[in-house]
């Protein structure tokens, strides 16, 4: 089996599973209980939270645990929109966003909020001057992914954050689901940031929202104090401990992992560029972990299933989108309908080997040839 869909989800690290199981077995108390078992569980939760905060260079009180990035994105976008609606109802985003950003924005549009899209340059990064021109007195939120899930394009988050600091009434939310554990970014000028553990070899069902001190939110889930007042529910201690473990492990030897992935990416690009009718949609601003390409005139699902026969797993659009719509993200960057209709994504990891990539390239070439002859 050759798994090339690490941006959809990652296999859970064995050490992460062990930390989850041990916590389940040894810490049965509710961290909010006042007896000895609760106090022990609470102590472990604080230690795990402090570790996560240290790794992210934020304060422990700035972490809100959620079920994953979709909940984090919803909490950030709806939470800010509802809490600060007296300031304004204008929100800015991009056409590269995940459906868990698009859907809450649609929901807010139906409630009378106004959403504008910042233009993208040819390389897929946002046009900073256009962003500046869109900012208004009533703009309360700018929300965007640090790395787009479909194309891997990385935005200049630090630069954007610095610009938005000049607009104190406007908050900056970053969906960092696709960069955390892969490519570091500074959270210094970011107000809110979403992430999910299963994207960096953690468990499914746990993620977080970084919310800087002093920012208020209308919670999605009311119910009193949990780990914070911003998201109620019994603290999921084993998942929280496993998240701390997954984050620490993913950030270990990060440079070496990046170098390995870059080498693989360079090799794939070189090979794919030789295939007639194949266009690489991920620009040079994409992180090497993600490579999006189109094979003209070929339905992406046909090619996906042809590769699946060889137990090679790739992705069409993101796993969380549905329907047969052309990719909005590919269209937004390439401005080419044919590319948008036929895009495939491969996403690689430090676990990916050169042998796997060589096999993938060879099989891809064979299958394209076969499908072209049909």
């Amino acid at each position, binding site marked *: 089996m050759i798994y090339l869909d690490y941006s959809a989800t990652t296999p859970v690290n064995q050490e992460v599973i062990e930390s989850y199981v041990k916590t389940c077995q040894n810490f049965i108390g509710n961290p909010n209980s006042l007896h000895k078992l609760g106090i022990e569980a609470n102590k472990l939760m604080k230690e795990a939270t402090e570790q996560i905060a240290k790794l992210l260079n934020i304060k422990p009180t700035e972490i809100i645990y959620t079920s994953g990035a979709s909940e984090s994105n919803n909490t950030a976008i709806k939470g800010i929109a509802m809490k600060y609606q007296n300031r304004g109802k204008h929100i800015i985003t991009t056409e590269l966003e995940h459906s868990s950003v698009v859907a809450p924005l649609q929901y807010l549009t139906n409630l009378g909020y*106004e959403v504008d899209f910042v233009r993208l340059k040819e390389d897929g990064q946002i046009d900073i001057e256009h962003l500046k021109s869109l900012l208004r007195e009533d703009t309360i939120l700018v929300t965007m992914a640090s790395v787009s899930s479909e194309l891997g394009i990385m935005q200049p988050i630090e630069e954007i954050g610095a610009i938005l600091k000049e607009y104190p009434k406007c908050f900056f939310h970053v969906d960092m689901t696709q960069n955390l554990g892969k490519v570091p970014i500074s959270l210094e000028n970011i107000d809110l940031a979403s992430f999910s553990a299963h994207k960096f070899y953690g468990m499914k069902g746990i993620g977080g929202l970084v919310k800087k001190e002093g920012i208020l939110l209308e919670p999605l889930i009311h119910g009193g104090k949990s780990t914070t007042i911003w998201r109620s529910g019994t603290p999921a201690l084993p998942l929280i401990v496993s998240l701390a473990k997954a984050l620490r492990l993913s950030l270990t030897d990060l440079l070496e992992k990046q170098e390995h992935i870059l080498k693989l990416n360079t090799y794939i690009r070189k090979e794919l560029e030789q295939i007639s009718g194949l266009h690489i949609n991920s620009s040079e601003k994409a992180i090497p972990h993600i490579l999006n390409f189109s094979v003209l005139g070929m339905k992406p699902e046909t090619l996906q299933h042809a590769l699946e026969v060889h137990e090679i797993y790739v992705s069409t659009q993101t796993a969380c989108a549905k329907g047969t*719509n052309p990719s909005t*993200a590919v269209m937004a960057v390439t401005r080419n309908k044919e590319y948008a209709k036929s895009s495939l994504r491969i996403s690689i990891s430090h676990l990916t080997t050169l042998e796997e990539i060589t096999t993938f390239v060879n099989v891809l070439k064979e299958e394209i040839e076969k499908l072209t002859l049909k």
Partner: protein
Amino acid sequence: MIIEISAIWCNSCLVMKKVWKSVKEEYQNIKWKSLDLDFDEAESKYQNLEKLPVLIFEKNGKEVSRLVGEKKKEEVIKWIEQNLV
């Protein structure tokens, strides 16, 4: 009547919301109805909704024309004018 069909997860639909709002203000005499593909089970009422968003122009309860995908405001207006004739 114009039926607009979108889906909450669809980025192109979100892009078109602002365009539609602006067009509606200019054509207040036309009745508009919004359907969500999933929540309003639009596929049980209308066929061939593979690509979104969709505008359907109806006359006397019958579909006469469709406009599919992201369009500029001028294109939506042109389509409406063609159907009003």
